């Protein structure tokens, strides 16, 4: 049996003025009809580049410099642009990451589908419309006749991604390339979309290449996996074999770094294969050091108390009340966090978990309710000394390491800012010494002081953010999805660092994440949020073992599992 797609010795280069980047080197892949091939790797591994190279849509200045791409026996590299366009529409379909941007917001779903169908097939007029209806039905959209006249903004994210899949299917392709198709979606929708792709693949005997950084996705959908590292495929094999008995060192460390959802471990397995060896963090004698001066004074009792907190955002302003569009982001939330505790807030996007964090940090003002930090009410916008003093106990670490540092300041100035502003050190020399110690402490090394943020990787930037937070000598640390923008290997390092710091400095932590396994490893107690309200607050282990609320149960069921092959849940085992 011949392969649907064979890639031989593919090389892709990006010549730039700083020298040529070899994005893909000597890659060999095979794909049969009716098979799902997972391409997995961390950012910059070249996995998306392969997908783009197949359909000849590399971003300039990228170019294929060697090898061949055989699709149904034809080498795609020999085709003219005209022929290639034909292949793209009719033979190969693409599904992109963000369903918000891959549909034209000004044209109805029906018109976009019909246009694509007319281009890709011989159908015209009402036959094309019928085909569009069929396609929407096949991707699981009901009431198709009315939905055809709807605009993309009237669809939810998951529905939009279904429409994108329908568009990809318009020309009855033989191959579908899905580039991170579920990364922008919530877990509950992710599972549905993956199931859909898998069943379409089986029904229509499609070849599917799914590009993702998420091993959980691969475990759920792929038949075979190719693991990429630094532009090369390091290992290819059956999904079961790769996940249970990986042979390459990189694959082993990559799988080990995925936080486990099934049981609590002491520390995350750190991946030394990747960030150039482990960065050791130097311990500081807290009894004598500046950083430890406030540790002894850690009060006991409740660090954060939230009582009946509400926050409504006005989405559309209007003179009359009935025309206003508002969103209740936080709905009567009450919780309390003990000093020294790790408290998790978990929920899907839009559940209001970040808004709670921002309210506590004072970035938003609540509508009503109380927020107390060590007993001091800080909810009102009073600028009294007591409120300011209470707020100084609290620091926040943000999600995006690229926008959370001022690109025009040196690391020294970024970290030293709170020390200089509050004059907590006697002299400039002392300030430098403290910054140097803190940077060492978070595993960066004092050599980082005089550099600018752009010289660091995402994980290192997040360490700088942590160092800046520590420089305020906080007692409470709010972490708002601190590792969602990072690769798994780096995530393990950062989470371990946060754990260590918490233990040493006795920090109270409010940890916000959508990632249940991470929450399980990091937190003592967890609150599950949905639509701005808290569904359930429980000890972490209790919640994961015996969730009480139906929604918690639902979330836990959707948690991607690595242990699929030990006891495969019936719902996810595909047909043979």
């Amino acid at each position: 049996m011949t392969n649907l797609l064979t890639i031989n010795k593919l090389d892709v280069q990006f010549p730039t003025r700083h020298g040529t980047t070899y994005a893909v080197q000597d890659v060999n892949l095979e794909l049969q009809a009716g098979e799902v091939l997972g391409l997995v790797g961390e950012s910059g591994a070249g996995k998306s580049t392969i997908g783009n190279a197949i359909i000849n849509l590399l971003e300039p200045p990228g170019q294929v410099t060697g090898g061949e791409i055989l699709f149904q026996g034809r080498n795609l590299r020999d085709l003219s642009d005209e022929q290639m366009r034909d292949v793209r529409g009719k033979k190969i379909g693409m599904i992109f990451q963000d369903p918000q941007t891959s549909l034209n917001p000004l044209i109805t779903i029906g018109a976009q589908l019909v246009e694509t169908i007319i281009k890709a097939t011989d159908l015209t007029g009402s036959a094309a419309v019928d085909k569009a209806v069929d396609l929407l039905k096949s991707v699981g959209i009901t009431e198709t006749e009315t939905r055809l006249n709807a605009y993309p903004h009237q669809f939810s994210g998951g529905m939009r991604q279904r429409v994108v899949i329908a568009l990809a299917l318009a020309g009855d392709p033989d191959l579908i390339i899905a580039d991170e198709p579920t990364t922008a979606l919530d877990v509950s929708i992710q599972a549905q979309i993956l199931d859909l792709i898998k069943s379409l693949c089986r029904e229509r005997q499609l070849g599917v290449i799914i590009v993702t950084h998420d091993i959980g996705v691969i475990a759920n959908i792929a038949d075979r996996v190719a693991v990429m590292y630094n532009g090369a495929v390091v290992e290819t094999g059956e999904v079961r074999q790769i996940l249970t008995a990986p042979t390459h060192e990189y694959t082993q460390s990559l799988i080990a770094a995925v936080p486990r959802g099934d049981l609590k471990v002491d520390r995350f397995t750190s991946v030394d294969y990747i960030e150039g060896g482990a960065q050791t963090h130097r311990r500081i004698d807290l009894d004598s050091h500046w950083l430890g001066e406030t540790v002894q004074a850690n009060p006991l009792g409740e660090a954060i108390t939230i009582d009946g907190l509400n926050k409504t955002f006005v989405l559309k302003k209007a003179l009359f009340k009935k025309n206003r569009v508002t969103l209740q982001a936080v709905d009567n939330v009450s919780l309390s966090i003990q000093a020294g505790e790790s408290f998790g807030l978990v929920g899907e996007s839009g559940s209001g978990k970040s808004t709670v964090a921002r309210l506590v940090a004072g970035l938003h003002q609540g509508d009503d309710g109380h927020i107390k930090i060590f007993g001091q009410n800080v909810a009102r916008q009073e600028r009294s000394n007591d409120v300011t003093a209470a707020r100084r106990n609290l620091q926040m670490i943000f999600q995006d390491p690229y926008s959370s540092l001022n690109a025009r300041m040196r690391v020294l100035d970024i970290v030293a800012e709170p020390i200089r502003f509050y004059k907590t050190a006697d002299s400039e020399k002392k300030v430098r010494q403290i910054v140097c110690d803190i940077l060492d402490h978070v595993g960066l090394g004092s050599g980082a002081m005089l550099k600018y943020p752009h010289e660091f990787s995402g994980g290192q930037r997040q360490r700088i953010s942590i160092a800046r937070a520590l420089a305020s000598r906080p007692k409470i640390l709010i972490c708002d999805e601190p590792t969602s923008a990072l690769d798994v290997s780096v995530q393990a390092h950062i989470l371990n660092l946060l754990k260590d710091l918490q233990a040493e400095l006795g920090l109270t932590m409010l940890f916000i994440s959508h990632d249940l396994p991470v929450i399980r490893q990091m937190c003592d107690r967890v609150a599950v949020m949905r639509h701005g309200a808290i569904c359930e607050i429980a000890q972490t282990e209790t919640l994961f073992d015996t969730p009480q609320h139906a929604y918690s149960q639902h979330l836990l069921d959707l948690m991607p599992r690595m242990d699929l092959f030990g006891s495969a849940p019936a719902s996810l085992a595909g047909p043979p």
Partner: protein
Amino acid sequence: MAEPTTQSRWQRFLDNDVTWSFLHTPSAIVAACVTVIAVSAALAAPWIAPYDPFDPSQISLWDGKLPPAWVEGGSSAYLLGTDNQGRDMLSTILYGGRLSIVVGFVAVFLGMLLGVTLGVISGYLGGKVDAIIMRFADVQLTIPGILLAILINGIGRAILPIDMRDDFAIYVVIIAIGLTDWPQFARVARGATMVEAQKEYVQSARVIGLPGWLIMIRHILPNTLRPILVIATIGLALAVIAEATLSFLGQGIPPTTPSLGTLIRVGNEYLFSGLWWITLFPGIALVVLVFAVNLLGDWMRDALNPKLR
């Protein structure tokens, strides 16, 4: 990090993306050269100009209205000819350009200072402050700039006693132009500020507890400078034109002090008597200067815009 940091400052400058883009854009290089030559020639006028147009001993009415040296009747002593008062055209253009450029720079700086301050405050605070400041800017934008400049200029001159008018004319012109072009700066600064204020580094500064003014100066301002720099370049060209227009209309610098605008105006009166050089050469100087600065601003807009790279 991967790259060694042993590079000197100069090497890093050469390695910079903006420098690279500059060296690969011929129009930018030409424009920069022309601008640098024009500005340095104008600033060095007292040393390189063959005559001093302010020194009556060097001016002789006998030499008035001489055509350029290569035209019949021209004298090699006056390369570009002389004007009606017998001043050497080349020298007056150099001195006039100096005045025009100084007025342009200072006026743009004034407008930038005012506009950026108001724009950053407006964008950062939002709400009522924003509404008030931006409505002022909107109202001002509905009035043509040159009319407003004439108005401010007129008021300024009316306030001053008659004997001081000519001495202070230049400052009045600067203030008039500066007050006219602040809304452009305010709008750009406000937009950039609103983008930056959403970013997490600003939020983190707020969590640290820094006061608003410090966040605006230390964090937001440096990150909004790029687009402001671009419109400042284009604003410079506009300010030079505005000064020329005011002077041409007789509202600006007195005719005894040469500026490009007054030279063109004076020349204009003699245009139909065949004395084309009195107005043509200052005109060319003005066009070349404005064109070069505009090209430079255009290139800068592209080079500093990460989306177009």
